[in-house]
């Protein structure tokens, strides 16, 4: 039985002890790769957690920094032969940091901004959509700095509603989410087309089924995440699979069982499928063959958390010539809100990824497939042509 430590972070004792400091995770850690610093590596972060738990190091700015600089890509977890549950340790740590409100004066404005983001905008879809229209207006007026890596929004796409009914008893639910629905609604249209092409009837979640809480979990705002998770579960009753085309949301929803620790939540988590995973299970619909080579970029939360990245290849393999990257699935630096909160590191990490992508195909403007909105937006901001597997499939659907 695992026990919680007595220390200020309340981490799982066995989890902390499980790291044998072998270092096999280091090359998979994006922040270690770009900084070369032990305290920007999983092993260093675990060591720092241990020191804090043992009382030999205070929770100070440098500790908080080592923790917030982690992208939470969880590549270290997939690489770790000891199965150190790094993702949950980091979430626990962030939760403890958030709870303790270890607030230096410098971090107060940031916290206020976070409150607006996590409490106001994300959970209230109407507010998010309103904010998106404002953002769009600001973009038109060239008020939005490029480095924020926000998507180029289209008023046409935003004004058209998604032609999928809410609620009912579908064969499969199409989870539409918050940011994705506001910023990448065309991808939902493609997803719906491909899903229907398999002969399935589909529906969107009923009321409250918008924000999955993934970003809240990452930021250590667990209670808010739990509330959102309960709302999501209630919005999609029945046994039908829950199809998610955002790898980050899918990963979080597959972990509701852990977050809420109830039989209902576990049953719900078992129904969650990534888009490609569901398409492959159901049978890839007939498509025509395209000549475009596609570079496959694995979102971390698809590869390291859901571990269902191979399905993307099966889903696209019949229609496209797929090109693999030679970087062991190293993170692109998007990491949910990471690109916005740690722009410097996120850009340095992305540079490596962009090089890997360009080297893989030997041409400057390759088409890249990525199954996560965060990665799509982050890589697009570097000038790459990034598309969701659903968009790619929808283009080559027969008929």
């Amino acid at each position, binding site marked *: 039985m695992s026990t919680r430590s007595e220390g200020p972070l309340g981490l799982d004792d*066995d989890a902390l*002890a*499980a*790291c*044998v*400091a*072998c*270092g*096999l*995770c*280091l*090359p998979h850690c994006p922040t*270690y790769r770009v*900084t*070369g*610093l*032990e*305290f*920007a*590596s999983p*092993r*260093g*972060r675990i*060591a*720092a957690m*241990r*020191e804090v738990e043992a009382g030999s*190091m205070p929770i100070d*700015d*440098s*500790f908080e920094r*080592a923790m917030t600089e982690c992208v939470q890509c969880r590549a270290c977890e997939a*690489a*770790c*032969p*000891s*199965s*150190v549950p790094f993702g949950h340790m980091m979430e626990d740590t962030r939760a403890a940091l958030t709870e303790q409100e270890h607030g230096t004066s410098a971090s107060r404005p940031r916290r206020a901004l976070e409150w607006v983001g996590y409490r106001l905008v994300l959970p209230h879809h109407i507010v998010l959509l309103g904010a998106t229209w404002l953002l769009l207006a600001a973009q038109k007026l060239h008020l939005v700095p490029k480095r924020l890596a926000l998507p180029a929004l289209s008023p046409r796409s935003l004004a058209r509603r998604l032609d999928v009914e809410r609620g009912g008893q579908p064969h499969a639910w199409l989870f539409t989410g918050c940011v994705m629905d506001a910023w990448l609604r065309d991808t939902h249209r493609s997803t719906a087309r491909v899903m229907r092409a398999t002969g399935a009837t589909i529906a969107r979640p009923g009321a409250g089924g918008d924000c999955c809480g993934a970003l809240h979990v990452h930021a250590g705002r667990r209670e808010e995440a739990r509330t959102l998770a309960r709302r999501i579960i209630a919005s999609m009753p029945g046994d039908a699979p829950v199809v998610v085309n955002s790898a980050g949301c899918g990963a979080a929803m597959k972990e509701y069982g852990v977050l809420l620790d109830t039989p209902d939540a576990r049953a719900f988590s078992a129904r969650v499928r990534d888009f490609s995973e569901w398409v492959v299970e159901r049978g890839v619909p007939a498509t025509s063959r395209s000549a475009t080579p596609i570079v496959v970029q694995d979102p971390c939360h698809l590869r390291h958390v859901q571990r269902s990245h191979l399905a993307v290849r099966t889903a696209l393999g019949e229609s496209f010539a797929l090109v693999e990257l*030679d970087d062991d699935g190293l993170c692109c630096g998007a990491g949910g809100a990471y690109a916005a909160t740690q722009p410097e590191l996120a850009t340095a990490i992305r540079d490596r990824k962009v090089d890997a992508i360009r080297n893989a195909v030997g041409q400057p403007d390759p088409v890249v497939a990525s199954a996560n909105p965060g990665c799509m937006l982050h890589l697009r901001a570097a000038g790459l042509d990034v598309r969701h597997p659903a968009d790619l499939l929808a283009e080559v659907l027969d008929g």
Partner: protein
Amino acid sequence: MCFPDSAETIAAAVRVARRHGRPFVARGSGTGLAGGAVPVDDPVVIVTTRCNRVLDVDPVQRVAWVEPGVLNLDLSRTIRHLGLHYAPDPSSQAACSIGGNVATNAGGPHCLAYGVTAMHVLAVEVVLPDGSVTTLGGLEPDAPGYDLRGCFVGSEGTMGIATRIAVRLTPNPPEVATLLLDFTSVDDAAATVSGTIASGALPAALEMMDAKITRAVEDFVGAGYPRDAEAVLLVEVDGLADGVAEQVAAVSEIGKANGARHVRVAADDAERALLWKGRKSAFGAIARIAPDYYLHDAVVPRSKLLDVLRRVYAIADEHALTMMNVFHAGDGNLHPLIAYDRRQPGVWEHVYEAGTEILRTCIDAGGVLSGEHGVGLEKRDLMPLLFSPDDLDAQARLRDAFDPDGAANPEKVLPRGSRCGELTAERASIGDKSCPLSTHALWWCRSVGEHIGKLAVGRPRSATGSWKCARPRA
């Protein structure tokens, strides 16, 4: 602590340290298993992780110049499109750096056929402990003069720091086959090893894992390692297609004659990679059994392998400890591994005693202390078990020739009192101890984790609080 990003800044860091009368120690990826990079005597720690460029690749001469922080596997990846690779492949190859490989003269499964690091390093540019920079060895087949390159490789940072390394690149073999043989007893597996070597076959790699380790590894990789086997052998043969087929048949036959239940030949690259991933994650996977482990690295003559193995298991039983074995069977390099939980009271004394007995057994069987991990801090005080005072004195004088002030990685490799006339009470006491593991080694085992912690949370930041570290000024 400093983070130079080029050969020049490494050299500058050494000069700054020396000017301030401080010793220095280099640190790569921190995957070493003998404490060679643990800072002792308050040295300047020179971290090479940012010196990570492959500087020049010559596919015709098959040579690459690399910086010391280049990761072993990254190098092979960079040159894969040329049909080449870097042959020495320590288990930590995904994470460990070439500089660290040079320091410890690292081995790896494929060193059975291809040889250890020293055979793949043609030249090293080094910064000597006095801050001067020189190149040892050369690209020509037989550089004139003494082979100081050979002397530097494996010196564990006690003769200076490698700043640029010329490595030999090996052509990828046209054909590779990986076999997995499983046995119902360790004896049968060991007999197969002897049989294979005796038959004249020279596999590229010949690795053994016992039952406990096989299960732990399988839990991690799911490569289809048999959970019910008492021992498995992982054998790789390479070369021209015909020769490979012949060798596969020969090894399978020898295995079956010695009681192998199954012989599985990996069907494709993916399967082969998965099997190797299992073997190479073995040490890390131990945590599935217990949170701490103490790993030994001894070499015994192949003919004594079976006897030593039996004795090793018996020792563990006597101390009621969990013992596992994963090792390079082909060259008699044993890695007996004791898994324990330091939170359990009194367990450490048993780990310590059992470790001592194991090492004695290996040395009594004509073996040596270290196969590939190096001596570092961990085995420093065991050196007198293997070397006479004269041997130690000769080694100490060689070291002095490079580093008269003892500034390069102090307190490592050679025990205090190695020099003639320096026979102190301390030395005598080490010699007299009934147990060869000194208190120092004991301390190291306990605190290596904490050391990493200190490195992690040390504050190598500039006053402005940014991650940028103090770059040494030349």
